[in-house]
């Protein structure tokens, strides 16, 4: 237990210093969400609204920042390891690659939380957003589920690179489609029904709906628990898939003795 904790703390420290806190993360965590939020606010003003929709336009921008931050940092980790010649050392070390990915993805998501916190801070400081009348416990549970969903997706996508070297490019193209299909910056009901069906397997969509239902105070509690359950189930499925997938990669390395597949 002590060794595991020591490993996790060291890994978090290295990950934060080397990979997470750099100018690229600044772009992903703050600038990109700010630009998308700015477009939303100006469109809202052009539509004749006196105030922007704080939940979707401002806080949604923060969630987009979390998603982009997690997606790029987690999936680029293995690619960077290969490029820097660290991958062989990691695979040969007694700590399983899977465990390293778990801690790295956790660190990335914890760091990307600053994007959401900044967005909420901006909503409170600039637009007078208030949490009055909200059930804070349910809100925290929804945020927790959002983090868990992102973590499960993160460890799944990190292993996704095992398919091929070019799958890194495929991961790049997930960023906006998921944001668009899961309703990061608008209520998902705006989408045509057939498009809403595509995102039922994405846990982030359900976590967001749970979060929205608390922030907007419009949805019944039954719906909230349904969203929470769906988010937990789909996220766990992604985690189980990543465990299975990781075993396949380990087997491949043991049998062929080469790392070209990852």
């Amino acid at each position, binding site marked *: 237990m002590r060794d595991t904790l020591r490993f996790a703390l060291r890994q978090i420290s290295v990950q934060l210093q080397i990979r997470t806190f750099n*100018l*690229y993360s*600044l*772009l992903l965590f703050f*600038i*990109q969400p700010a*630009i*998308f939020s*700015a*477009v*939303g606010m*100006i*469109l*809202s*003003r*052009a*539509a*004749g*609204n006196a105030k*922007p*929709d704080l939940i*979707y*336009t401002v806080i949604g921008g923060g969630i987009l920042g979390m998603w982009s931050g997690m997606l790029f940092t987690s999936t680029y980790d293995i690619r960077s390891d290969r490029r820097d010649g660290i991958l062989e050392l990691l695979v040969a070390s007694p700590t399983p690659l899977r465990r390293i990915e778990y801690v790295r993805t956790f660190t990335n998501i914890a760091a990307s939380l600053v994007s959401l916190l900044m967005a909420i801070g901006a909503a409170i400081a600039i637009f007078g957003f208030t949490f009055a009348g909200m059930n804070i416990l349910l809100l925290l549970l929804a945020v927790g589920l959002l983090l868990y969903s992102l973590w499960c997706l993160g460890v799944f996508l990190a292993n996704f690179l095992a398919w091929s070297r*070019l799958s890194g*490019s*495929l991961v*790049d*193209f997930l*960023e*906006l*489609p998921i*944001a*668009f299909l899961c309703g990061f*910056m*608008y*209520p998902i009901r*705006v*989408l045509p029904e057939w498009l809403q069906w595509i995102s039922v397997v994405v846990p982030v969509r359900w976590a967001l709906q749970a979060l929205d239902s608390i922030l907007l105070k419009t949805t019944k509690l039954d719906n909230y628990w349904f969203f929470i359950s769906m988010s937990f189930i789909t996220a766990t499925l992604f985690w189980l898939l990543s465990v299975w997938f990781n075993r396949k990669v380990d087997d491949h390395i043991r049998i062929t003795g080469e790392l070209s597949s990852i």
Partner: protein
Amino acid sequence: MNPVKRWIRLYFIQAWFSYRALFAWSTPFNYIASKLGFPFFSMLLFIFLGQSVGLNDPVYIVIGNILLLPSLNGVMGISMTIGGEKQFGALSYLLGSPAPRSAVFIGRAFFHIIDGFIAVLVALPIAILVFHLDLSQTNFLLLALCVLLVCITSTGLGFIMGVVTLLSRDGWMITSTLALAFYVLIGVNFPIEALPGWLRGISLSLPMTRGIQAARMALAGADFATLAPLIAGEIIIGAAYILFGFALFRGVEQISFRNGALDNL
């Protein structure tokens, strides 16, 4: 060989090789997805964002995002082409070669201009089918001229960002940020009149802003006389950026010959 012939030959040969090198790693899927994927999904995101706040007509956003394609090509493509020379260790050889710099540097833009123009030609019919764009009034010749102009003028910013990429390890991040800022600054998703005064000033000092405005008006059927001031403004600003980009490259090259600045990073 005749110096003019040599210049032209060098211009086209290195333009082709630098463009091929940029996408040499790619597959057709990756190429198409990188060219159209991000812009397509960002457009959809903005359309539904607009719809959720009460803007039910997506045509403005659709047209803007299609006209943004050559701008992204001109700025990001050229910046990557120039920055790649350093990343792959070819810069020292390039700087050491006796080749005329104008052909080597400005030639980087040629295929990106054509590529950007073709991207609009591909995206426009898709938009007509999906979003039922009404082109009954469109002045096609003027529209083509405006799109070509945007393809060319956007390269100026690409040259400048290319030099920034040579000078800074974070050049690519700066270029990406600038490309994202286009969604706000150059009239892609809403008219620049919707911007606060100081941002409108920045918008008007950028290439592409007037070109995109002119292209929108050509789509609506405006004649040349109406568009002439916008086109003239776009040409002047675009030319200024291209000349500044080239001058910046030459300046940095001269400094680098003295202190090795480009190899130090």
